[in-house]
C-alpha cells in the first residue's frame, strides 16, 4: 500500500440529483459499490434491480467525480454510454465523491447487442 492510498478517505459521498433538482446523499465505503451501499443505508434514490450489472435498471450518469466500474452488460451500457459517464450503479465503485443522476434507458435503448464496454481506466492517484 502506498502513502497516497493511506490518505484516501475511508468513504466517499454520493449525491443523487433528482429530476426536480432535489438531492439525496449517502456515504459509500471505500471499494464498495454505489447501489449496494445505498441499499445497506436504507436510501431510496436509484432503482434497484438485479444488483449484478445485468438488468440495466440502476442506469445512472456520473455528473462529477472519478470511479471504477466492474463489467456491465453491453445490452445496457454501450461503449458510447461508458464514454459519456453512463454506468450501472451496482457496478460502480467511487474513487472520489460522486454526483450522479438517473439515466433510465429510453425507448431508443439498443435492443441489439452493442459493442463491449471498456472499464473506466483507474484514475491517477499519484498526487
Amino acid at each position, binding site marked *: 500500500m502506498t502513502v497516497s492510498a493511506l490518505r484516501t478517505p475511508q468513504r466517499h459521498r454520493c449525491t443523487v440529483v433528482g429530476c426536480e433538482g432535489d438531492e439525496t446523499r449517502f456515504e459509500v465505503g471505500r471499494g464498495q459499490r454505489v447501489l449496494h451501499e445505498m441499499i445497506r443505508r436504507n436510501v431510496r434514490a436509484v*432503482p*434497484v*434491480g*438485479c*444488483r*449484478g*450489472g*445485468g*438488468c440495466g*435498471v440502476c442506469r445512472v450518469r456520473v455528473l462529477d467525480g472519478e470511479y471504477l466500474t*466492474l*463489467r*456491465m*452488460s*453491453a*445490452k*445496457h451500457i454501450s461503449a458510447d454510454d461508458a464514454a459519456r459517464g453512463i454506468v450501472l450503479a*451496482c457496478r460502480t465503485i467511487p474513487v472520489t465523491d460522486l454526483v450522479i443522476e438517473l439515466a433510465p434507458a429510453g425507448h431508443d435503448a439498443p*435492443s441489439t*447487442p452493442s459493442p*463491449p*464496454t471498456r472499464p473506466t481506466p483507474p484514475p491517477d492517484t499519484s498526487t
Partner: protein
Amino acid sequence: MALTGVLRPGYIQIRVLDMSEAIVHYRDRLGLTEVSTGSDGRVYLKGWDEFDRHSVILREADEAGMDVMGFKVLDDATLNELTAKLEAYNVVVDHVEAGEQPGVGRRVGFTIPSGHRMELFAQMEKSDDGPQVVNPNVWQSEPRGMAVTRFDHALLYGPAIDEVTDLFCDVLGFRVAERADLGGAHAVWLTCSNKAHDIAFVPNPDPGSFHHAAFYLENVNDVVHAGDVMAYHDIPIDVGPTRHGITRGHTIYFFDPCGNRNEVFAGGYTYYPDNPTREWTTEQLGKGIFYYERELNDAFLSVYT
C-alpha cells in the same frame, strides 16, 4: 411408456459477466456439480439427481441472459419426427454436430417468435456422478449449499407469445397448464410432462429476454434452507420464500452475481394431459405469481436480463 416426444428441459446455457464469480455461485451456493470446462471456456454443471452429464452451461460474455434452452426428446427417431414437423410448420431449423457440447449427440436448433433459441437433442452421455442404480443411496456425492436436485424450468420474456404457444403445442406436443390474461396478450405455463410447467413465457417487447432459470428442491424445508444459504452469503433475494398460485410451487427468486435471476422451486401439482387449463384474470395475476403477497413486486415485470 406414456411419456414420449419431448421429455424435459435438458440444459440451459446462461451468459455470465465473470466466470469465476459464476462458478462459485452455481457450484458452491446452488450446489451443482462442476463437470468440465470446454476448450472454448464454457463451464458445464449438473444437479445431483440428474443422470445426464450436464444441465447447466455457463458462457462468459459481454451481456447477461440466456443463449439457448435444450429439450431432451425420447430417441433419435423422435428427433427426426420433430425436425420434420418443425420444417412443415415453416420453422427454419439448423443442425449442430454431435460433440459441440461434450458428451451430447446431434442437436436441432431453431429460433422461436419471441426471439429465443431452442434446441432438441436425443443423446447425452450419462454422468458418473448421477443417481446410483444398484442399491442406490439418495445421492452419490454429499450435496453442498442449496443442494438443488436438477435444472427444472425457465421463464422467458419476449414478444409474440401466442405464436410461441401455438408452436410449442402444435409442433412439440406441449400443453398449456396455466394461462394468464394480460389484457389482450397472454402469459403461459407450458408442460411436456407430469410437471406443472417445463417452460413459461410472459409477453414483453424485448425479444430473447431471460426472466429466470429454476432449480428443483424436494420440499419447502429445502427452500427455507436455500434462503438461509442466500442470507449467509449475501446473495440478493428478489422475492420469497413464498408460494406461486400458478403451479402452487414454493419458491425463492434470487440473483446470480451478474444479475441473472435464479429460482429455487419445490412442489407444484402433478399435471396430466387431460387436465383443463387453469386461467388467471388480469386483476388476480398478482396472486397467481406471488400467492401470499397477492401482488407483483416492481421487479417481476421490469427486471430481467
